[in-house]
């Protein structure tokens, strides 16, 4: 009886150890440096965006793609000191302008061009050329 219990216990430990190994061998999805910003735009969830040149402790670079008259992602969460690059994939010029008091603006970003900014604070922004286009930066 004692020997049988030990056998069951030993088998259980093997199973648990195998599960542990499987969990650690599974590699979490890697961020694709060439990918555009995540397009998961909801009010409840603010995506982190796709970081470029990731090195621990260094500021990250995020991309916001402008296409189909929309910022993708519409809201992005970054750290202060990180850089955001807005890339205009539309046929028409856009801009990125802070909503309240307009302390910063990109001026016009022609089709196919980009503009970057180091984030120092959270901001709501919009395209002053097409005021229906709105975006948000949450700086942690």
């Amino acid at each position: 009886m004692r020997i049988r219990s030990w056998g069951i216990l030993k088998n259980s430990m093997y199973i648990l150890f195998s599960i542990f190994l499987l969990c650690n061998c599974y590699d979490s999805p890697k961020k694709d440096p060439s990918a555009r910003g995540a397009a998961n735009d909801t009010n409840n969830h603010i995506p982190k965006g796709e970081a470029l040149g990731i090195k621990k402790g260094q500021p990250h670079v995020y991309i916001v793609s402008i296409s189909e008259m929309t910022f993708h992602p519409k809201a992005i969460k970054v750290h202060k000191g990180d850089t955001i690059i807005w890339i205009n994939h539309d046929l028409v010029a856009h801009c990125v302008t802070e909503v309240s008091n307009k302390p910063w603006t990109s001026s016009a970003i022609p089709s196919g061009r980009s503009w970057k900014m180091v984030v120092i604070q959270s901001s709501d922004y919009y395209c002053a050329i097409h005021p229906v286009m709105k975006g948000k930066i949450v700086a942690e």
Partner: protein
Amino acid sequence: MKTITNIFSAVIMMIALLISSSSFGQTPKLTDPEIASVAVTANQIDINYAKIAKEKSKNADVLKFAATMASDHQSVIDQAVALVKKLGVTPKDNEVSKKLNADAETTKKMLRTKSGNTFNKAYIHNEVAYHKAVIETVQNLLIPQAQNAELKALLEKVLPILKAHLEHAEMVQKMFAK
């Protein structure tokens, strides 16, 4: 105000009829050179409306909207011209582009008779009506009938621009409704 609304409802109806069976007996069948011509004509018409707004309006929101229309529609024309050049296609005048031009002449005459806030309201009402009609035409006539993949892709890329213009026009229109 009611008269203006009626006029623009009539404009929408007239342009919408372009793609209905009652205007031409049946839905017009367009070739790619004809589709290119309609696309360039429709954009040029809105640039011309914007020029009138620039001459006649003093309202900052109207002037800003008109500047965006002039710049965006010129960008679309530039892309369309570059594409037809690449494809070796010459835009061909047709019943739809002729009707668009004829209706635009009537609208321009009407806009030129107005001034001040009456002009602003008339211009922005027309922009709402015109963009609704053009969206309808691009969506239900030009995109489905375009044969060349690049031409179809360009029209599909233009559609969100027109929709954003409509939303912008409606936003300015609301300011005048206050």
